[in-house]
């Protein structure tokens, strides 16, 4: 069962512009969400998280927005840099889940 979905397999953005990566989930019990970045031949690296008590969390160029009513979250990268080119995974969990559910990933390409 695909409880976390990333419907865009890839995204191409010009350097300096905004990148918006989207993620949808189906389980209303999820209350904690994370974004991971993955380079080839490396494991996923934690990027930013948000709990359901917030609707926005910001860390430098990265901002995650959560819309609980729509069961949707998004990651904004501003400004985008070529080094941001990677696969981005969103993940979700909740109290007593003791595990994370991952989306299938979005491959971001930032063009110089």
């Amino acid at each position, binding site marked *: 069962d695909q409880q976390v979905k990333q419907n865009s397999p890839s995204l191409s953005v010009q350097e300096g512009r905004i990148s918006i990566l989207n993620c949808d989930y189906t389980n209303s019990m999820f209350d904690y969400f*994370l974004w991971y970045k993955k380079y080839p031949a490396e494991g*996923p690296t934690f990027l930013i998280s948000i*709990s359901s008590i917030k609707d926005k969390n910001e860390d430098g160029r990265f901002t995650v927005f959560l819309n609980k009513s729509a069961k949707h979250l998004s990651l904004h990268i501003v400004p985008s840099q070529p080094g941001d080119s990677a696969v981005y995974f969103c*993940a979700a*969990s909740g109290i007593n*889940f*003791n*595990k994370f559910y*991952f989306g299938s*990933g979005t491959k971001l390409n930032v063009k110089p």
Partner: protein
Amino acid sequence: DAGVTQSPTHLIKTRGQQVTLRCSPKSGHDTVSWYQQALGQGPQFIFQYYEEEERQRGNFPDRFSGHQFPNYSSELNVNALLLGDSALYLCASSLAVEISTDTQYFGPGTRLTVL
């Protein structure tokens, strides 16, 4: 701090064989989770070990088993390998009583190819 380490990096096996993958968690972490990432998909949770016991399990058959040692390192064993077991196997560690709200740190993974 070496972070999460996994061995081996790559592995090639044939159908029906057995394989053991190893993981050392980040220093100070006591919980280890294993994930399978098939090509083009996100990581799928296999199971999690805490205090040397399997605490949570995903939707994987009994051919997948694991172990956690007193030093918190862990092994993933897969018996009777199938072609569909070919994937990147990721280990993640964390330190939390409530794992669902703690950040997991991933290792680089072991690429298993079953021929």
